[in-house]
């Protein structure tokens, strides 16, 4: 902890973040349920991966497991989360802390509660420098002001002394982002960073995120239920349903030709012309309760293609084209449809 351990520069092939077979179990009234079941994905520096799914599909929990902030009621029961090749799940708390900030960072959706209400924002933004770079208060403040300038806070020097409740929602989100990118992490996880904001501000924030990503060569994991955001911002997409990954691949390919009926359903339900800012569209029916996930395919209850095999056997992700996979027994049929 004395100096910033210079990250061993990974070669271009090693993903900045590699999640493999992640399983998270959650204790609920009706017993333990598997909230995240065998989720795998990876993302390189400079790339953006979107985790797409309805609320409750396990995407937030996946994000929290990656940064090690799961609630006590939930626990990781299997899999690996490799950051620059090292499995964070096997690290000691101190080792993990060393990664938090300089390597892994997260932005939450609700910026009001995510900022400490009783600390001046300058101090909060400067905190990563105090923790990891051992800067003095004054130096950290200067860094914070620089960051605030960068994320577009007017009069940053004065505003650094203000408290979160004195900022508007968009400004608070900017502050949160400033804090997350302070140490130019390899991986930035953005958990629905724009849901709480109005549409014009959303666009500004997304632009800011992209600019920062380009500037700092970060890998971004974007958690969202907004198809438009995925289409515009992400390079790759991971579609989640009931705790599992149903489809995975480059956004352009997946959106052009979905290989899973769920993805297909999502895309079909969006009117061609206006996709922006809509909540996740209606696929008939609702996801299964986590305690009652069927033995076979998780999507069987809502699937238009369902047949006897789907009830019996859970499909495993199968390669479905260049860098793509889908967990459907009959994904080929979708092309023909």
């Amino acid at each position: 902890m004395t100096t910033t351990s210079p990250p061993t520069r990974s070669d271009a092939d090693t993903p900045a973040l590699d999640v493999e077979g992640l399983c998270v179990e959650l204790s609920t009234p009706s017993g333990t349920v598997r909230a995240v079941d065998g989720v795998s994905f990876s993302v390189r520096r400079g790339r953006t991966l979107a985790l797409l799914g309805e609320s409750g599909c396990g995407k937030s929990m996946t994000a929290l497991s990656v940064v090690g902030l799961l609630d006590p009621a939930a626990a990781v029961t299997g899999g690996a989360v490799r950051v620059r090749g090292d499995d964070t799940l096997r690290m000691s708390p101190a080792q993990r802390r060393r990664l938090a900030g300089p390597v892994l960072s997260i932005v939450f959706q609700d910026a009001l509660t995510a900022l400490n209400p009783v600390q001046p924002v300058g101090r909060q933004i400067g905190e990563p420098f105090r923790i990891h770079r051992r800067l003095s208060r004054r130096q950290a403040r200067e860094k914070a002001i620089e960051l605030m300038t960068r994320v577009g806070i007017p009069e940053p020097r004065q505003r650094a002394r203000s408290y979160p409740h004195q900022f508007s929602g968009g400004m608070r989100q900017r502050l949160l982002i400033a804090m997350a990118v302070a140490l130019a992490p390899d991986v930035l996880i953005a958990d629905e960073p724009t849901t709480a904001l109005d549409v014009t501000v959303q666009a500004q924030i997304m632009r800011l995120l992209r600019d920062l990503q380009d500037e700092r060569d970060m890998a971004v994991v974007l958690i969202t239920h907004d198809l438009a955001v995925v289409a515009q911002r992400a390079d790759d997409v991971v579609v989640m349903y009931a705790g599992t990954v149903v489809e995975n691949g480059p956004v352009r390919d997946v959106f052009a030709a979905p290989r899973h009926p769920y993805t297909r359903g999502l895309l079909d339900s969006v009117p061609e012309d206006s996709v922006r800012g809509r909540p996740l569209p209606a696929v008939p029916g609702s996801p299964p309760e986590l305690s009652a996930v069927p033995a076979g395919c998780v999507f069987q209850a809502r699937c238009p293609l369902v047949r006897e095999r789907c009830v019996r056997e859970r499909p495993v992700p199968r390669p479905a084209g260049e860098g793509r996979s889908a967990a459907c027994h009959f994904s080929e049929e979708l092309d023909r449809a």
Partner: protein
Amino acid sequence: MIPFLRTRILSSAVPLVCVVLGVFFLARMTGNPVDLYLPLSATPEQRAEFSAAHGFDLSIPVQLWNYLTDAAHLDFGTSLRTGRPAGEMVFDAFPVTLQLAGVTMLLAVTGAVLVGSLAAYRPNSPIDRIASLLSMTAASIPDFWFAVMGVLVFGVSLGLLPTSGTIGGPEIWVLPVATLLIRPFGVLVQVVRGSMVTALSAPYVKIARSKGATPRRVVFGHALRNAVTPVLTVAGDLAVGLVNGAVIVETIFGWPGIGKLMIDSILQRDFAVLQAAVLMTAVTIFALNILVDVCHALTDPRVRQAVPA
């Protein structure tokens, strides 16, 4: 901050005036002290003389006026029981209680913040369970019982501590402070724990952790200051309640404090002392309330902007 304080002080002055008036009438309701201070067989003339000498023969409004004007000059009259100026007796007794209560609250708050935070950091861990059980038990032990047990066990059986008294080194403080401490400590541990559990699960704590903050930084740098508001409120009210506890402690340990003085003076119908003592306590409580509010304002920037009703 200044307008905040001004409003707060003005609004707190109303209760103060009420207390000053209240104690006057309350005292007068308890009856004439003449019988207590005159020989059993005093003649009616002697009684009348005594009443006149101490102003008890005047009408209530006149007595009240005298009381208020004298009090404005910090003259509280003379104690019937001891013949000393009441103000002097109160000023002698007050620091004793203030020190006792101050040390108690300081230790209670410090201890409760440490123990409560420790318990809240790992909810339901063995440490949490032990701390919760002990604090609940501590909060429900009758204080006089604890005091007498303490004297017998630590004073006599083990011989570690003096049984009582105010003269001596720091060791004389242990039993009185412990007696006064158990309840505020027990209550505060639970309040700290509850409010820390809430604060520690807040998103900003997650964010702090995501910045790589150590548990210490998370607890003391982020959660504590957010959790402190209810703790301060409760601590302020507990501090006010210490006057009651002080009566017991001072009675048992022979401390010449204001709690015992107050009870003695009501039992002896020593109105001058009673009025002075209650006024002093009310002023202290008044000051304490303002102190608590200032602390609130210091710890929470949102409070600073809200001007109190």
